[in-house]
């Protein structure tokens, strides 16, 4: 898994590549916690290059959503891969995360 973070005017974009599972969820959570600890609570997660996500990854998404929501922010998904969509759907958590067709559209909602 690789994580790239870019800061925009009102939002931070987190681009994740590869596999988000029990072996990488800790690193994923650390990256997101670092952002929220810095007060960056508007997050776009570009998940177009995620080829597998397990419940360990979903837990990070749900925990981050709770953190940013309680701070008045928002987390959305940009161009989630079919694998991300399917895991969210199977777990019944798809309703929690707004999904946008691309990164620019997602950024534009903030």
């Amino acid at each position, binding site marked *: 898994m690789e994580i790239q973070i870019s800061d925009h005017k009102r939002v931070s974009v987190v681009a994740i590549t590869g596999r988000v599972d029990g072996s990488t969820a800790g690193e994923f959570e650390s990256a997101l916690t670092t952002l929220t600890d810095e007060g960056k609570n508007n997050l776009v997660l570009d998940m177009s290059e995620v080829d597998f996500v397990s419940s360990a990854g979903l837990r990070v998404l749900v925990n981050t959503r709770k953190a940013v929501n309680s701070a008045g922010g928002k987390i959305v998904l940009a161009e989630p891969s079919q694998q991300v969509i399917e895991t969210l759907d199977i777990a019944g*958590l798809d309703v929690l995360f707004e999904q946008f067709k691309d990164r620019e559209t997602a950024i534009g909602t903030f």
Partner: protein
Amino acid sequence: MALSKHIMTDHRLTIEGRFDQVASVGDLVESIARDAGFESRDQYALQLAVCEALENIITHGYQGESTNLIEAQVNANPGEVRIELWDDAPPFNPKNNSNDIEWNEDDPPVGGLGLKIMYKVMDEIRYKRVGDRNFLTMLKRLPPEVTDPGE
């Protein structure tokens, strides 16, 4: 990694109870599901379900990563994929720990997601304690239209 090449024999794979080993079994299951005629969506779902089962064994059975072993056997029978997992952890029947409680968007669940995914994906999950080992069988059948003998 090289492990799968070394000890995979006839759809059997033994891994250590470490998270970075889980993907090798997931890849095996996905490959066998593809050969068995499952569509790509179900191939991924099967891969996901077995990875959830393995991560549960590591997290809850072995109480974290270790060198304890997990044995996987994956078979494609006509119209179905059967996954069997053996581990040496204390007894753990997933059925006794699965739940599907009501939740709302303000308080979504973070626990039990792996079991929920396993039961959503698989058609049948059976657990047996055999001696000092846990034996989990997970079964998914091809949809009827795929197994229609008219093909």
